[in-house]
């Protein structure tokens, strides 16, 4: 039973990826075709989740939106990890001025609200999915700096690091050979948790009109477009909202499940 969160998280994440991939070749209806006759239909056998105010099938729109959601999440988290993890490892291995500069800079970035960052970037570059991804990625960097720093500190206290130094191994080689493999699981868990935060952030930015234009279907954008019809029919807003909630839940479960699964102290219980 202890693996239940991991399995549930994997199923939801896999479902999301599958929906995004399938949408590249097939969707039940054209996700961009405006059809005035089928406006705001309730869920039925023909349209499983109903249609929006333009008469577009919500299942099709949701599948295409999953692509943007995943892409934003992957790029933002990957970018943040690529920048943040080496900085965190460097700060954990070399105490002193370098470490202080990295950690203080990271704290300042952490204190800056992500939304403010997004508004600044949009003001400079215009609203787009790329701008939103950049803003989310930058806001996620300090999370990885902190996580990598703490994990590196605990690894550096172990004797096998001293053993490697006695063996004449240089600091960069120690980082690659000993630190990275041993902090990897912790970072994997963090990546999964950050992924769900990124999805939520992207939905929020889209809803505020700071991310995707109307031409790019994203779940947050779908909610924004549906809010005017909320009292006519709740479906067009409810469907993307639930999709966002499910995706966030899925990646949180995945992160928690991974943490439990990889924790060697819990191994005997498995």
């Amino acid at each position, binding site marked *: 039973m202890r693996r239940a969160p991991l399995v549930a998280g994997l199923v939801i994440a896999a479902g999301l990826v599958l929906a995004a991939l399938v949408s590249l070749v097939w969707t039940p209806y054209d996700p961009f075709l405006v059809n005035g006759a089928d406006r705001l239909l309730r869920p039925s056998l023909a349209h499983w989740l109903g249609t929006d105010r333009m008469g577009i099938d919500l299942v099709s729109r949701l599948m295409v939106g999953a692509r943007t959601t995943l892409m934003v999440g992957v790029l933002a988290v990957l970018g943040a990890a690529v920048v943040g993890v080496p900085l965190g490892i460097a700060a954990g291995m070399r105490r002193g001025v370098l470490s202080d500069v990295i950690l203080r800079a990271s704290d300042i970035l952490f204190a800056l609200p992500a939304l403010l960052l997004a508004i600044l970037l949009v003001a400079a570059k215009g609203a787009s999915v790329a701008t939103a991804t950049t803003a989310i990625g930058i806001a996620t960097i300090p999370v990885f700096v902190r996580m990598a720093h703490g994990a590196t500190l605990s690894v550096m206290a172990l*004797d*096998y690091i001293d*053993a490697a*130094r006695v*063996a004449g191994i240089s600091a960069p080689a120690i980082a690659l050979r000993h630190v990275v493999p041993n902090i990897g699981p912790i970072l994997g868990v963090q990546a999964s948790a950050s992924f769900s935060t990124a999805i939520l952030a992207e939905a929020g930015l889209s809803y505020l009109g700071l991310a995707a234009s109307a031409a790019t279907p994203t779940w947050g954008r779908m909610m924004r477009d549906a809010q005017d019809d909320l009292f006519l029919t709740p479906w067009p807003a409810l469907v993307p909202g639930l999709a966002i909630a499910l995706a966030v839940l899925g990646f949180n479960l995945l992160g928690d499940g991974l943490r439990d699964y990889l924790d060697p102290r819990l191994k005997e219980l498995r």
Partner: protein
Amino acid sequence: MFEVDHVTRTFGRRKSETAVQALDDVTLDIKSGDRLGIVGESGSGKTTLVRLLAGLDSPTAGEVRFQGARLDRRDPHTLARLRASVQMVFQDPRSSLDPRMKVGQIVTEPLRSRRLRQTGAIPTDPKTRLAEVLDQVGLPAAAAALYPHEFSGGQRQRIAIARALAPNPDILLADEPVSALDVSVRAQVLNLITDLVTTMHLTLVLVSHDLAVIRHLCDQVVVLQHGRIVEQGSADAVYSHPQAAYTKSLLAAVPRLPD
């Protein structure tokens, strides 16, 4: 081989209240072929001393010389020579072996160091050397393909000893090499170290809080208390005629079986 010259090591900000003086004006000569035991209770500075010898730490004041050259972080050449001939066995093999590496990789790690290879003083063929040292510590060749957690504590310490032997060192530093092990395997590991030191003509520096362990392996003894050397001399002399009151109390604390 080693000259420890008026070495002081202070941890924490100097002159602040939290500063800890781990070593206080320690002077010590270690000659080739010595089997030196460093004894003292926990907090006496014995681990700090051996870490200075291993080049893992630097003194706050004074200097440590290896073969006449001053050890200095900024002098990679001397440090590489030190590492090629001075190897160390740590206290707890559960912590000193990387859990994500196979035994073969762990043992040959010193041989893959570019710095050590440049000294030209270490064996050049990792594969052959791996088989040799595994045999010397009494592990089967098949051990190379396994991970550390697949071995018992005593076997893991054998793996750590094999790694220390791999670059063919002249000096072996051992920091409490058996205190993390089951009592039942301590004697085996101590006998292994004794055999290796004898057959390979190693200089041994052994840190222990256990006088019986020191007596078993060492011919010279240094007694540390609060970071100072309170007594030093040949093991026989220190054990039969201890001079310092602290040494006497340490010896009196050793449990004896009735004759």
